[in-house]
């Protein structure tokens, strides 16, 4: 039931860490969720997908990784840095 609040906070953290490229450059958001985090993963995914599909995001993919205990953290982002490929 509280998954939307948590998803909003994940998006806030992602936006902050995506600087200076901006939330629109985010291609993936990886979140670690422990078994005791009190999160229904299906519900959380649904909320995340709704948020990541709307501005300032441009539909990055969500990676849900297994975490420990009540761990809930944003692990990493993949960001398009705007430079041409090497």
């Amino acid at each position, binding site marked *: *039931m*509280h998954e939307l609040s948590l998803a909003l906070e994940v998006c806030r*953290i992602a936006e902050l860490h*995506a600087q200076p490229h901006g939330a629109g450059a985010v291609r993936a958001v990886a979140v670690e969720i422990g078994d005791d985090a*009190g999160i229904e993963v299906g519900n959380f995914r649904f909320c995340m997908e709704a948020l990541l599909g709307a501005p300032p995001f441009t539909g990055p993919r969500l990676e849900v990784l297994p975490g420990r205990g009540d761990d809930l953290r944003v*692990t990493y*982002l*993949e*960001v398009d*840095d705007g430079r041409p490929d090497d």
Partner: protein
Amino acid sequence: MAVRTIDVRERVMARNDELASQVRARLAEAGVMSFNLVSSPGSGKTSLLERTLEVLGEELDIAVVTGDVQTQNDADRLARRTDRLVQAVVTGGACHLDAAQVMSALEAIDLARTRLFFIENVGNLVCPASWDLGEVAKIVVFSVTEGEDKPLKYPKMFRMARYAVLNKVDLLPHLDFDVDKAIAFAREVNPDLRFFLTSARTGEGLEEWFDFLRQQVRAPVAA
């Protein structure tokens, strides 16, 4: 385009926990004892607080923040029992209070004239377990009209709580509820849980509850 990975490793609850620490520090600095009352809807948090305010409101300088999804009915009910401040937070759909809401509610409270602060959380045994509000301890309220196995069904809440109030004991003669079994289930998930058996309606068991609160207010508040 080059996609690179940015290491984040940031806890999602970090901002709430930081605000909760600020709430805790402010309360400790003002020497205010604080409890976060959590329960399912209808177990009697508001009735318990009504009786508590009637008897101890002035004696212990109690202030209350109530959280509800809609309406400020609980705050209105409590305000009729005391001249002291009862602050309502309407969450507008959210299933829990967060530390930011408690922080802004504190702005309206004269902490210098408060010794005991209750947060009456949104009725919900799941979500409020995850949000630290800066309280000294959580008190879980459940009632004999609910199942004895509630602690097993909602273990996180019973694990996070330091005290439990089993309310509506006046109804026991009419029910099949087994008090010993309920306490045993609760201690299975949290062996240190201290219990109070109360009826907010008849007053049964409330003296022990009031004495506990008096003693908590006298004891130095741990930061």
